[in-house]
Structures are given as structure tokens and as C-alpha cells.
């Protein structure tokens, strides 16, 4: 079976679900004839027509609001924002309406919508194209946040997100859209939205990460292994709700926690994971937990971007300090 990219997997999931559920519609800027700015929606309009694959006016607040309205009427809209940095005009709709519709109406109306957006840096994009603000959305009651990091998980998690009866922010790590490849069985099988995925077993530390950082984290784990340190690598995948049970189970074995994320440090999801470990499993820890994160800065323009991206060395150094510094 041929290997496909993460982007191909997104496209496969959209094709599968549109073929099997007439209520699924795709909307956003350029999603029709152009197939999306990254080509995630290629071929959908030709197959399912302009009634179900809808090019919207260039207006992100509108996309957010229209998606909410459609979802209340029994459709399952999948909205595409071209970049996560362009979601902000639609925040009011996500926070004030999508997240609240079920609660506000005591379940009379729901918002089974998926809001897709490529996110993260590392592709030398212009300003506002490199944001990693998953923590903003994880803070909002009523919304779930999902980030795939491989073609298989992109396929299975997107299917699950579309089938969910609640609103999902689905953030796609665009840096690895085309660089990470694997086989995907196009059988319509969804993955659970309440669990993380252990990508590598280890005994010395638990490394929790998500999105494009999974690549550097796995590379770092390999390097660490050669140094005699075995890292258990967990792809968080669903940022909200966080699967703490799996993380704690891993910590029972390793006793050391390292969280790696590209987003800014302060109030990031890493802080939440470590706070929960402090509350629920402090006694398991053999060393203070550590974070490797982005800095609390605005992502510089692309000439300096690489200095701000997380490199394999950053992870290796932090892991070594965590294990060797606290023996």
C-alpha cells in the first residue's frame, strides 16, 4: 500500500465522510475550485458539488458564524480557516456561540462542527501564519481541541471530529503536512478523541508532545536511546480533554516528565499537564518536571524563525538534565 502525506490523509477523510454522510458540508475561502490553499479539499467540489463544498466570501467571522448556523440545522459543517492566525476574527463565534449552543439551549440545539486550521511555524511563512495558540482554545468550556501528527491519526481523528456532536477545533501541523508519510487504510475507522497515543516505549522519562514537535521528539528519543536513556514518547493528540490517565500510567514506570510544545511557555498546555501531575501524581515524580516550549515572544519573521523553533538538541538536553541531573 502506498504511503500518503498527512495532507492526503485529511483529504481522504473528507472524501470518505462526505460520501457516507449527506449532511457533511465543507466551507471556507478557496476550498472549492482551488482545493484549499494547502489543497486539503482537492476534488471535493468536483465530486460533491457546490452545494456541499462552498467557497465563502473572504470573511473569517462570517465563516465562523455561518458554520454555527449550519450546525444548528442538522448539517455537519467542516470549516477551513487558511491559517490559525486568521481564526481570530471568528473567535466571538467560537467562544460565544459554538462552544455554548448545547448548554444555552439545554441540548435543544447543538453545534456538531469542525473548525480546521493549519498551525505552527517552520515554513518561512509571512507574519500571522505561524501561530500555535491551541491553549487559547483549550481554555474555552464547550470546545474540544484535536491535533494530529501523522497521516493515520489525521485520518482517524478527523473522521471522529466530523462525527462528534460537539464543536471541535482541529489544528493541523502544516510543517509536516507533506514531510511525514505513512500508509493509511481508507476504511472509515475513526480514532478516539479522548486518548493519547504512545509512539515509543521507554523506562527513563515520559515525553509528552503533539503536532509537528512529534518529529523532533522521536528523533530526540532515538538519540537519547543511543546514550542509554529510554524515553517513552506520547502524542497527546487530543489537547482537550487531556488523557491524564495514560500520562500518569507512563509516569508510574518512568517517574520523569518532559513536555514539549511549540506554543509559548506561559499558560501553555504544558503548564496544565504539569499542574495536573502536581495535583494527581506528585509522588510518582523522581525529578521536577520540565518543559521545552516556544518562547513568550511573537514569532520572528522567517530569517530568525529557526532560532525559535524547537530543535532535537533542545529536547535531548532537557531530557538529559531531567534524567542525569536528578539521579
Amino acid at each position, binding site marked *: 500500500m502506498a504511503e500518503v502525506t498527512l495532507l492526503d490523509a485529511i483529504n481522504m477523510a473528507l472524501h470518505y465522510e462526505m460520501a457516507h454522510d449527506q449532511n457533511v458540508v465543507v466551507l471556507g475561502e478557496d476550498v472549492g475550485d482551488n482545493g484549499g490553499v494547502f489543497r486539503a479539499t482537492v476534488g471535493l467540489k468536483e465530486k460533491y458539488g457546490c452545494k456541499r463544498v462552498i467557497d465563502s466570501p473572504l470573511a473569517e467571522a462570517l465563516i465562523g*458564524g455561518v*458554520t454555527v448556523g449550519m450546525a444548528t440545522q442538522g448539517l455537519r459543517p467542516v470549516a477551513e480557516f487558511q491559517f490559525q492566525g486568521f481564526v481570530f476574527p471568528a473567535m466571538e463565534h467560537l467562544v460565544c456561540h459554538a462552544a455554548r449552543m448545547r448548554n444555552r439551549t439545554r441540548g435543544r440545539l447543538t453545534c456538531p462542527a469542525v473548525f480546521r486550521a493549519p498551525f505552527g511555524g517552520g515554513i518561512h511563512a509571512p507574519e500571522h501564519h505561524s501561530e500555535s495558540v491551541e491553549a487559547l482554545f483549550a481554555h474555552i468550556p464547550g470546545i474540544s481541541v484535536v491535533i494530529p501528527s501523522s497521516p493515520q491519526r489525521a485520518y482517524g481523528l478527523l473522521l471522529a471530529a466530523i462525527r462528534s456532536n*460537539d464543536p471541535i477545533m482541529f489544528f493541523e501541523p502544516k510543517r509536516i503536512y507533506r514531510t511525514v508519510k505513512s500508509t493509511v487504510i481508507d476504511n472509515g475507522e475513526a480514532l478516539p478523541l479522548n486518548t493519547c497515543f504512545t509512539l515509543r516505549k521507554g523506562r527513563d522519562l515520559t515525553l509528552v508532545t503533539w503536532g509537528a514537535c512529534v518529529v523532533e521528539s522521536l528523533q530526540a528519543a532515538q538519540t537519547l536511546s543511543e546514550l542509554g536513556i529510554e524515553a517513552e514518547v506520547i502524542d497527546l493528540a487530543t489537547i482537550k*480533554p487531556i488523557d491524564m490517565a495514560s500520562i500518569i500510567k507512563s509516569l508510574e514506570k518512568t517517574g520523569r516528565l518532559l513536555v514539549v510544545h511549540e506554543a509559548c511557555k506561559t499558560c501553555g498546555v504544558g503548564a496544565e499537564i504539569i499542574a495536573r501531575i502536581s495535583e494527581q501524581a506528585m509522588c510518582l515524580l523522581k525529578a521536577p518536571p520540565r518543559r521545552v516550549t516556544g518562547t513568550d515572544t511573537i514569532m520572528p519573521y522567517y530569517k530568525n524563525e529557526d532560532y525559535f523553533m524547537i530543535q532535537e538538541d533542545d529536547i535531548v538536553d532537557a531530557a538529559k538534565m531531567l534524567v542525569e541531573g536528578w539521579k
Partner: protein
Amino acid sequence: MNVLAMPMHRFIDHRGKLVKPLPEWADLMTLKGFYCDMVLTRTYDNKAVALQRTGKLGTYPSHLGSEAIGIAIGRALKKSDVFIPYYRDLPALWARGIGMEKNLQYWGGDERGSDFSPDEERCRDLPFCVPIATQCTHAVGVAAALKIQGNHNVALVTCGDGATSKGDFLESLNCAGAWNIPLVFVINNNQWAISVPRAIQCGAELLSDKAKGAGIEGITVDGNDVVAMFDIVTMSLDHARKGKGATLIEAVSYRLSDHTTADDASRYRSEDELQQAWEFEPIKRLKTFLIEQGAWSEQDDISWQAHCKEVIETVVDHYLSMTPQAPESAFDFLYEQLSEDLLSQRDLIINKAMRMQGGNHG
């Protein structure tokens, strides 16, 4: 020139006189029904303000002066259409069949107020929208869904004049034109967005002029004339139902009340202007017209007012006797399924509520 007296789509003027022949549908029995509805919803409004003043209701936005707009909308919509209201729309919701208890619950701080009705069709109506103009974009989504579903139903959305300054309103109007969707916008142009008067809200002569840029029809109507309102809303719904696209209706009226019970309009609005606006209000003119037609009398009016008070007292009694929502209900409709973490937070609230209620929480 007084904006309320300006020439616009109108059948009955503020003196209760016909300015042009009534449309065919407007028989005296129908108009009497409109009148009774308007009086009932005004009686409710007065009572709701009184309930807020006595601590039995939270902050409340009076709809005083916009009864004609709401009753026309509520009566013109088919059950299977979808209504997307803003927060000052009790008359429309009531005319649509949503109980007034729901409105009291909503403003009384109980989410069950937006669980409108067990009726399946009306269940598709959206709840009140408090953020300004966001409901307009939801309405575009609703109308697009109706078009995709191909059932010939129409969406109708309301907003105030202040909302027309927001990007959401303009983006929605623009998209409605581009997509040719079955949608009717109704602006309740009541001249005030809290303390900002219409004159400095925007430079357009008419708010309905904004339709032109979106490529849809815009109509300015006397929002204090229920006949004109019903006529235009019905025509616009019909236009949309036939696949001819969206319409923007500017209903010119006046906010005879404060913005909400938390506001004091005397700080920014002259008493003279308010008194003049009362001369144009929707109920008096229809009453004058009906009396002159011999279809209504002062005695009828006294009897109906008394009946309305009784009805509203019953509604209020019902509201006040409702069992409060369980504190943990804040969790019960947050997601379809709760995570372990949320279940544990839910237990915390149950225990806290039991503690605060002296162990009596069920």
C-alpha cells in the same frame, strides 16, 4: 424632520388614519388580533420591568415601542421557518408560540429559557443572541442550510440599528447577496444603541441603503405600523421562499424604554424627544383606527387590558413556582459526553451545593 414621520412604507399613520388602501389580507378581524397581541406583550413588558425592580428578574431589555415589529414577524413566519432573534424579541417569539415563561426564565438566569418548545419544527429557532450582530452570520448559515436541504423554508433574523455598524452584519448581508439564500433581515431601527443615537451610528441616509452594496433589496418600513410591517415581512418571506433571495427590512421605530433596566436614558435623551416619540407609538394608532372603523371600543379595551393582566399574572405565578435548575446542570449540557475530569468537577459542585443548601440538595 422627525424621522418617525418621514415618508416610508406605511398604511396607517400615527393619527390612526389610512394613508393608502389596506392590503387585501388586512381585514378588521386580523387587525384586531394584531392589536390584542400587541397589548398583551406590552402588558408583559411592564410586568417584567416591575419584576426586575423587585428583584424577581435579572437585567431586562424592554421591548416597549417595538410590539408591531415583533407581532408582524411572529405572525408572518411559518412554523417550519427558522427565526433567529436578538435579545429584544419577546413579541415575535410569543407570536410564534414560545411561552412567556421561557422569556422570564431566560432573564431570570435560567438556561431552560432557551429550550423553547417541544414542537419539533419550532425547535430549530435559535435562542436569544446577546453579542451584537453575531446572530446575522448564524442566520446566513441557517438559510444556507435550508437551501441545501431544499425544503423551501426561510430564515428571518432581527437586530437593532447599532448592530448594523458591526462587521458581522455587513459580512452577513454581503454573503446573503452572493449566495442568494432564503433570508430576511429585519433591523429594529429604534433610534438608539444604548446612548448612541442613529444620527451618529452611520452616515447612510437609510439603514436599508446598506442592502444595495450587497446586491439585495432594501426596504424602509414604518415599524410602528403593524400593517406595513406584516405586509413587507410577508412579501419578503415569499420572495425568499421562491428562491429570489434575501431582503433587508429597516423597520423604523423608537425605543420608548431605557436600553435595559440597568440603563437610565434620561442621562442622554431629552424628555421632549421621548414625548414626541410616544405620539407615534404602534398601539395607540391601531386602537384609534379600529375604534374609528367600529371594530373596537374603549370598553373592549378596558376588558382586554384586564384580561391581559390576568394572563400575565398566571404566567408570572408559573415562573415563580418553577423548580430551580440543579446546580450541576451547568455540566449536563456542556458536551454530549463528559470527560472523567468534568465528572469529577461536577461532583465537587454537587457537594458544594449540598453544603450551601444545608444538605437539602436532591
